[in-house]
């Protein structure tokens, strides 16, 4: 377990940084391999409704691939991954050669034999030793075979609507937000904001699995780690659900208090999802939102909140410390890919700048990518690479600094907490995270819709239900 936690922490630190490996295409006319012959279907191809610049970028990738690998045929596919539609496609042989699942799903897909092995192709491109061992753990099976590559990562923190903070008087002499360092302060500041502005102090998306997903972060800060973790493996290797620990009960009582004692939550929390949470913050209906560095464009450029009214802060600490989730998105591959397709896929990832290689075109592509981000009003922020190549990482950071469009005082604490290690980064709960989130979301919904709901009883029921699920799915009881 300790090993797992350590490696997850390591993963998180790397994962964070990864978010902006930029889109690039090299305009090299040089043929790299004329003998490589295969067809690739490329998921997440920009649809017709995408911005012209984005469509041009991908057409550029295609043209470059055509020059470098003339016998590799690229077939654009608009497919966007979701677990519910991927399974029938994978079983029916129609899954695209490459697609992009979140880090919650690789182990499930690997265990169900629904993704392709690219270990040999990675070795051939010389990048296997350049990405973190933690990624290997997340994207490999028990035999060390690798089925994916990291695309980008994030760390969960908190988005702030500074306009509401100003209206509530929660700013210092320099106009910087007096923001909550602890969960307790978050509740208190939220109450002040609600009283002074009439807007929700905190938007909490408590629908489907979102509520449980965010709650795990709160629970960690209340001490649901190590021996009190929400799920763990006992000495016999059996996975055990542990929702009824005193730490988890305290965390859930805090959740209940956010609604009934402090009354800081948005009114329709049980029907709010990730996207609508960003909308509420971006449109000034809520002051705080648990969200990550990879989604700063959601409330700003997408929902119209000016970047000067936006800040990103570290996840508030609890009595047991300060923890935050680090996650991200990866590239995975169809289960039936051939060796040649594996090599062609790595070539494609290299062309689009997702492998740690640098040349003039890649650097130009990075610049174009960050310039576009800045032009559409999205914050250009520091990013951390998952790759260990120092030269590559330094070049990327220099470009980000060049295009940075925000007052970094509104972000420094977030990034410093990661770089200086004052926050402990954690990966998602190790097994069947989505099901765990679903169980916890139902408990949260009960807590915030029924005053006086019995926390212990609700958590015990959820624990029994999830334990049965674990026994059935993984403990083989």
């Amino acid at each position, binding site marked *: 377990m300790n090993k797992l936690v350590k490696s997850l922490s390591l993963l998180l630190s790397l994962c964070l940084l990864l978010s902006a490996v930029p889109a690039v295409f090299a305009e090299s006319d040089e043929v790299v391999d004329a003998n490589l012959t295969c067809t690739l279907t490329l998921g997440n191809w920009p649809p017709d409704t995408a911005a012209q610049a984005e469509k041009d970028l991908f057409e550029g990738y295609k043209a470059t691939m055509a020059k470098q690998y003339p016998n590799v045929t690229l077939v654009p596919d608009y497919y966007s991954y979701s*677990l*519910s*539609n991927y*399974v*029938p496609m*994978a*079983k029916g042989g129609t899954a695209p050669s490459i697609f992009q699942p979140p880090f919650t799903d690789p182990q*499930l897909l690997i265990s*169900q*034999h*629904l993704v392709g092995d690219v270990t040999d192709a990675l070795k051939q491109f010389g990048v296997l030793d350049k990405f973190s061992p933690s990624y290997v753990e997340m994207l490999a099976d028990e035999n060390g075979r690798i089925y994916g590559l990291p695309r980008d990562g994030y760390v969960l923190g908190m988005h702030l609507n500074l306009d509401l903070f100003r209206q509530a008087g929660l700013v210092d002499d320099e106009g910087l937000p007096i923001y909550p360092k602890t969960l307790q302060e978050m509740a208190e500041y939220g109450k002040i904001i609600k009283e002074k502005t009439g807007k929700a102090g905190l938007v909490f998306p*408590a*629908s*489907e*699995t979102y509520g449980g997903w965010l709650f795990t972060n709160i629970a960690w800060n209340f001490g649901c780690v190590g021996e009190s973790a929400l799920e763990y493996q006992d000495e016999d290797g059996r996975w055990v659900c542990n929702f009824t620990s005193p730490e988890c009960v305290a965390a859930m009582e805090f959740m209940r208090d956010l609604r009934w004692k402090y009354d800081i939550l*948005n*009114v*329709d*929390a*049980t*029907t709010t*999802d990730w996207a609508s949470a960003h909308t509420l913050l971006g449109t000034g*209906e809520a002051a705080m939102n648990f969200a990550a560095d990879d989604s700063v464009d959601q409330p700003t450029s997408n929902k119209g909140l000016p970047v000067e009214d936006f800040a990103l802060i570290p996840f508030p600490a609890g009595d047991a410390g300060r923890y935050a989730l680090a996650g991200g998105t990866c590239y995975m591959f169809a289960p039936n890919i051939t060796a040649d397709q594996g090599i062609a896929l790595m070539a494609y990832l290299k062309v689009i700048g997702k492998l740690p290689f640098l040349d003039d075109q890649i650097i130009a592509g990075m610049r174009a990518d960050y310039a576009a981000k800045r032009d559409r009003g999205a914050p250009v922020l520091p990013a951390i690479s998952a790759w260990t190549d120092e030269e590559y990482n330094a070049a990327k950071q220099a470009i980000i600094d060049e295009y940075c469009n925000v007052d970094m005082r509104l972000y420094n604490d977030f990034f410093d907490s990661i770089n200086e290690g004052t926050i402990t980064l954690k990966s998602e709960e190790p097994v*069947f995270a*989505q*099901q765990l*989130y*679903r169980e916890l*979301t*139902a*408990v949260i*919904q*009960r807590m*915030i*819709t*029924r005053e006086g709901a019995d926390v212990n009883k609700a958590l015990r*029921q959820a624990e029994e*239900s999830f334990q*049965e*699920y674990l026994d*059935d*799915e993984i403990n083989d009881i």
Partner: protein
Amino acid sequence: MSQSAKRVRSHAKRSESFKSWLIMLPGLVLMTFFVWEPLFESIRMSLYKTRNVELVRFIGLDNFVSVVGKDDFMQALLNTFSYTFWSLLLGFALPVILAMLIGETRRGKGFFRTAVYLPNMLPGLAVIILWSAFFSGEKSGVFNIILMRLGIPAQTYLTHADWVIPIIILIATWKGAGATALIYMAGMAGVSPELYEAAAIDGATVWHRIIHILLPSIRKLAGTLLILQIISVFQIMYEPMVLTKGGPDNASLSLMQLMWQYAFGGSMNYGKASAVAVIVTLILLVMTAIYSYFNRKESDWD
């Protein structure tokens, strides 16, 4: 009849039969491929431990035992009956009333017919999203805007466990009642005008005409539509999935939504999902059988 005439007749009969089968063939092939095969496959899958859509090993009724033993199944079952109850309460009589009102209309009948059917032409998801703006608990929610104009504080709607099913049924009724009303209107059009004339001569009021002529005339049609409504409501899924995601605290979770969750909600347990589907089918079969039994008895009495 001579032997040759018999032969000719038999040949003609066989030829006719062959043609009939030929006409039915495309339908039968499609039914087999799209209905019966998935149905039997689903039953088979419910008896196996599965790894995504692969059958791993036969486990008998274990999936059923596991599914039925869980709190969320009982909650979903009760909710589904609750959906049915509210649907009958809010949605069964309304189409009859609409049909009667439109039937009695002297001018603009075509307009009203189109008007009541219009919501049925809207895409289902669009209807849900539209109504979610009305029932939003935010101050920007349409109902809350109206309430606040009247000096009443804004309310929350979809976060109340007791309200959520009636609200969903209200929306479903808004969308579907017009289509059912058209069917009733067709049924009412078949009532002989002579009966009304005779009633008028006898001095019957409108109310008497409705009670003694109209309603008895559409009783069988209403029975059929009743069972169709129950079957339809029992399969309710996308409305709660989009509007409330089954919440709060599973208060609007339906059996079909539970089935979806087993298959696609993160666990990929197609065996258990199939078990839920089979259970729903069995419940509906029992209901249909009960209806058919009483319907037959009634026909016998007639």
